[in-house]
C-alpha cells in the first residue's frame, strides 16, 4: 500500500506550500493563506469533535424519559456547550476560514489575501477566543443555551458564563477580520481578465458571507460585551429589576444571529455551485441569478431577525413585518435550488463522491429550508416555537446542509490541498451512511416537535420515547459516518494516489496550478480569458469527446 505508484503522467510537484519550509515555527508564523487554512482545518476539527461528543451524550441521555446519563444541570451544559462549540467555533469558521482561505486567492489568481498578517492574526484570535470558551467548559461549564438569553445569563446562571462570553466576543474579531480580508481581496486582488462576472460562484458566495460577517458580527460582539459587563458589574441594561429590558438583548442578539445562519449556509451553497457544474460538465444554469441570489440572501437576511421572537410579546405589526420578510428571503434560496437542479439537465453526470454530497445537500437543505417556512408562518410558530421542530429545522440546514457542503467541499478540493486522492469507494459509502444516519436522527424530531415536545428538556413525558430512541439510533450511525472520512482523509494524505493538477477535471483557476500549489500560488500571474464553467472552449481540460451531438442550445443569453 505504501508504495502507490503515481498515476501515469502525475507526479507530486517538486516544491509546494507544504514542503517549502519546515518546522513548527514555519507553520505558526506563516502568512501563507494555504497554511493558515490548514491551521484552521485542524482547530475547527477539534471543536467539531468536542461538539459531536457532547451531541452524542445528549442523544444517549435522551434514550429514556427520565434521562439516562446525567443530572439536569449537566444536561443543560451539554446542549449549551454543544451549540456554542458547533456554531461559533466550528460551523461559522469552517468553510470560510478553511476552504475560503485556501481557495479564494487561488480562484481569483492572486498570490495571497490582501492582508496576510491579519489573516494569521485572525487565526490567533480564534485560538484565544476558543481557549476562553474551553476554559469556561472546563471550569463549571455553561448552562445558558447558546442564545445567552438575559436575565438568565446575566443574573441567574451560576455557571461559567463570563469566560464564555469573553471568548465569543474575542472570536467575533476573528470572524470580522476574515470577512474584511475577503472583501478587500475580492475587490482589489483579482488577476487580469477576472471580471466580476467571471468569478467562481464560490467567490460570490464568500463575498456575500463576508458582508454578513462585517456587518453583523460587531453587533453580537457589543451585545455579549454588554451582557458580560452586566453580569460582572450589575449594570442592568437587560435586567428588568434595574429597569433594563431582556427583549432588547434578543433584538441585538438576533440582529447578528439570524444573518449568521447565512454565514453558515452561503459558503456551503458556494461549494455546491462549484461541485455541480464540475461533475455535470456543463456551465451552471443561471450564473448571474445564483451570484445575485447570494447577495440578496445576505441583504434580506438582515431584515428578518425578529422571527425568532414571535411569541415574546413582540408587537403584532413588527411580527407581521418580520414574517413577511422571512418569506422573501426564501425566494433567493429557491432560485439557487432550482438552478442547481436545472444544471443537471442534459449534463454528463458522474457519481463521484463530491457529487453525492451535493445531492445530499440539495435534499437536506430543501427539507431544512422548507421547514423554515413553517416556522416563519406566524400562526404555526405559536405552536412549534421552541419545540423539537425547531431543532430539526436547524439541524437539517446546518448539519444536512452546511456540514454536508463542507465535507463535500473537502473531498472536492482534497486533491488540491494535499496533492492526493481519497479512496473513492470508501468515500461513497461514508457519504451514504451520513445521509441515512442523518435522516434517521433528525426526521423524528419534526414529529416530536409538532407533538409538543419542548427543546432543551432533560426529561420528557414517556409518550415521546419511541421517537427519541429512533433519533438516538440515527445519531450513532451519523457518528460512524463522520468517523470514516476523518480516518480515510488522514490516511490519504500519505498514501493516497497522486492527483495531478486537475483530476476531475474542473474549470476554475485553482486547478491550473500544481497540486499542492506552490507558495506563491502561480508561477506567473495568470490571465483569464474564458467564461466560468465553460467546458466547451477549454482544450486544456483534455475533454475531447465534446457534447453529445446536439446543437449547442444556448438559452437567451
Amino acid at each position, binding site marked *: 500500500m505504501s508504495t502507490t505508484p503515481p498515476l501515469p503522467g502525475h507526479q507530486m510537484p517538486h516544491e509546494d506550500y507544504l514542503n517549502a519550509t519546515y518546522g513548527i515555527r514555519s507553520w505558526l508564523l506563516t*502568512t501563507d493563506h494555504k497554511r493558515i487554512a490548514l491551521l484552521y482545518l485542524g482547530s475547527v476539527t477539534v471543536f467539531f469533535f468536542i461538539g459531536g461528543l457532547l451531541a452524542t451524550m445528549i442523544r444517549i441521555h435522551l434514550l429514556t424519559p427520565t434521562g439516562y446519563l446525567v443530572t439536569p444541570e449537566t444536561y443543560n451544559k451539554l446542549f449549551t456547550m454543544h451549540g456554542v462549540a458547533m456554531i461559533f467555533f466550528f460551523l461559522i469558521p469552517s468553510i470560510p476560514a478553511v476552504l475560503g482561505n485556501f481557495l479564494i486567492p487561488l480562484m481569483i489568481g*492572486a*498570490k*495571497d489575501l*490582501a*492582508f*496576510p498578517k491579519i489573516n494569521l492574526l485572525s487565526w490567533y484570535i480564534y485560538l484565544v477566543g476558543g481557549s476562553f470558551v474551553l476554559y469556561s467548559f472546563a471550569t463549571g461549564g455553561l448552562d445558558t443555551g447558546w442564545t445567552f438569553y438575559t436575565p438568565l445569563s446575566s443574573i441567574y446562571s451560576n455557571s461559567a458564563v463570563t469566560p464564555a462570553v469573553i471568548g465569543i466576543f474575542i472570536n467575533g474579531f476573528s470572524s*470580522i477580520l476574515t470577512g*474584511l*480580508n475577503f*472583501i*478587500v481581496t475580492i*475587490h*482589489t*486582488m483579482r488577476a487580469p481578465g477576472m471580471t466580476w462576472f467571471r468569478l467562481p460562484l464560490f467567490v460570490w458566495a464568500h463575498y456575500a458571507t463576508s458582508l454578513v460577517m*462585517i*456587518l*453583523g*458580527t*460587531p*453587533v453580537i*460582539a*457589543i*451585545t455579549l460585551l*454588554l451582557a458580560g*459587563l452586566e453580569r460582572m*458589574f*450589575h*449594570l*442592568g*441594561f437587560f435586567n428588568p*429589576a*434595574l*429597569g*433594563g*429590558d431582556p427583549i*432588547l438583548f434578543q*433584538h*441585538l442578539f438576533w440582529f447578528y444571529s439570524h444573518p449568521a445562519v447565512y454565514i453558515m449556509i452561503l459558503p456551503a451553497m458556494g461549494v455546491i455551485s462549484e461541485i455541480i457544474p464540475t461533475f455535470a460538465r456543463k456551465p451552471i444554469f443561471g450564473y448571474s441569478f445564483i451570484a445575485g441570489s447570494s447577495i440578496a440572501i445576505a441583504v434580506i437576511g438582515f431584515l428578518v431577525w425578529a422571527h425568532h421572537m414571535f411569541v415574546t410579546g413582540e408587537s403584532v405589526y413588527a411580527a407581521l413585518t418580520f414574517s413577511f420578510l422571512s418569506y422573501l428571503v426564501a425566494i433567493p434560496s429557491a432560485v439557487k435550488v432550482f438552478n442547481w437542479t436545472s444544471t443537471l439537465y442534459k449534463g454528463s453526470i458522474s457519481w463521484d463522491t463530491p457529487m453525492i454530497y451535493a445531492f445530499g445537500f440539495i435534499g437536506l437543505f430543501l427539507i431544512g429550508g422548507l421547514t423554515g417556512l413553517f416556522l416563519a408562518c406566524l400562526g404555526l410558530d405559536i405552536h412549534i416555537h421552541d419545540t423539537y421542530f425547531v431543532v430539526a429545522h436547524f439541524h437539517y440546514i446546518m448539519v444536512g446542509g452546511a456540514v454536508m457542503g463542507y465535507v463535500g467541499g473537502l473531498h472536492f478540493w482534497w486533491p488540491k490541498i494535499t496533492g492526493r486522492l481519497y479512496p473513492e469507494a470508501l468515500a461513497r459509502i461514508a457519504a451514504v451512511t451520513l445521509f441515512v444516519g442523518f435522516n434517521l436522527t433528525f426526521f423524528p424530531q419534526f414529529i416530536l416537535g409538532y407533538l409538543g415536545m419542548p427543546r432543551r428538556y432533560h426529561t420528557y413525558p414517556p409518550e415521546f420515547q419511541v421517537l427519541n430512541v429512533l433519533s438516538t439510533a440515527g445519531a450513532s450511525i451519523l457518528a460512524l459516518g463522520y468517523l470514516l472520512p476523518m480516518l480515510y482523509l488522514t490516511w490519504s494524505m500519505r498514501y493516497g494516489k497522486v492527483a495531478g493538477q486537475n483530476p476531475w477535471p474542473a474549470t476554475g483557476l485553482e486547478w491550473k496550478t500544481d497540486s499542492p500549489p506552490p507558495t506563491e500560488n502561480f508561477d506567473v*500571474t495568470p490571465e483569464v480569458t474564458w467564461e466560468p464553467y465553460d467546458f466547451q472552449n477549454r482544450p486544456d481540460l483534455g475533454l475531447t469527446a465534446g457534447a453529445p451531438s446536439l446543437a449547442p442550445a444556448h438559452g437567451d443569453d
Partner: protein
Amino acid sequence: MHRTGELYGHFETLEQQKETATLGMWVFLVTEVLFFGGLFMTYTINRHAFSTAFGVGSNTLDLTLGGGNTVVLILSSLTMAMAVWSAQVGKVGWFGIFGKVRWVSIFLIATLVLGTVFLGVKVVEYKQKFDHHLVPGRGFDIRYRSEHPTASDNPKEIAAEKEELEKAFAKDPDINAHAQLYFSLYFGMTGLHALHMIVGAGLLLWLIKGSFAGRFTPQYNTPVEVVGLYWHFVDIVWIYLFPLLYLIDRHQ
C-alpha cells in the same frame, strides 16, 4: 512575504497596495459603526423609556469640560488632516534648534498632544463621577452630591439640583435605578470611545516614529492616510456622543 521597499510581495503595484489598505480601513470602520451601533441602540431604547432619569443624569455632567473636549477633539481632527496633507506634499520646515523637521511630524505630534489632552479631561470627569457616587454599582446614589455638598460646591447649584431630583423622584420613583442605567451607558459609550482614542494614540506614536525616520513621502504615505481615517472616525463618534450624553434636557 518578500518586500521590496515599501511594496509587499503579493501586490503588483504601490497603487494597488494603497487602494487595498484604504479599502481595508474603510471596511473596518463599517464594522466599527455597527459595533457602536449596538450601544446606540441600547441607548435609544432606554432613553425612550426613561427620559426623566436620562435628563437628570445628563444634567450632572460638566458641560464646560464636555464642550471643551469636543473642541479639542475636532481640532485634533484638523491637525490630523493637515498631517495627511503635509505628507502628501512632503513639506519641510525649519524649527529653530531642532533644525529641519518634516511638517508631518509636527502635525502628528500636535494630534497626539490634543488626543492626550482629551483623555486627560476625561479622567478628570470620571474622577468627579466617582466622587459623586455616580459610578454604577452598589454605591450608586443619584442624590449623593446634593446631600453631601463640599465646600467648593456652589450652594445655589446644589439647591437647584435637589429640587430637580425631588421633581424627578415624584415622576419616577425608581429614578435611582434608571439613572444608573444612564450612567452605565455613559461609562460604556465614553469608555469605549476612550479606548479607541488610546489605540489611536498608539498608532500616532508609531506614525511619529516613522515620520522622523522619513518613511512618509509624497509617493508613499498610506499609513498616515489610513490612521487618519481611523482618527476622524473616532472624532465622529464623539460628535454624536456629545449631544446624546451631555445635552439632554438642558433647557430645564
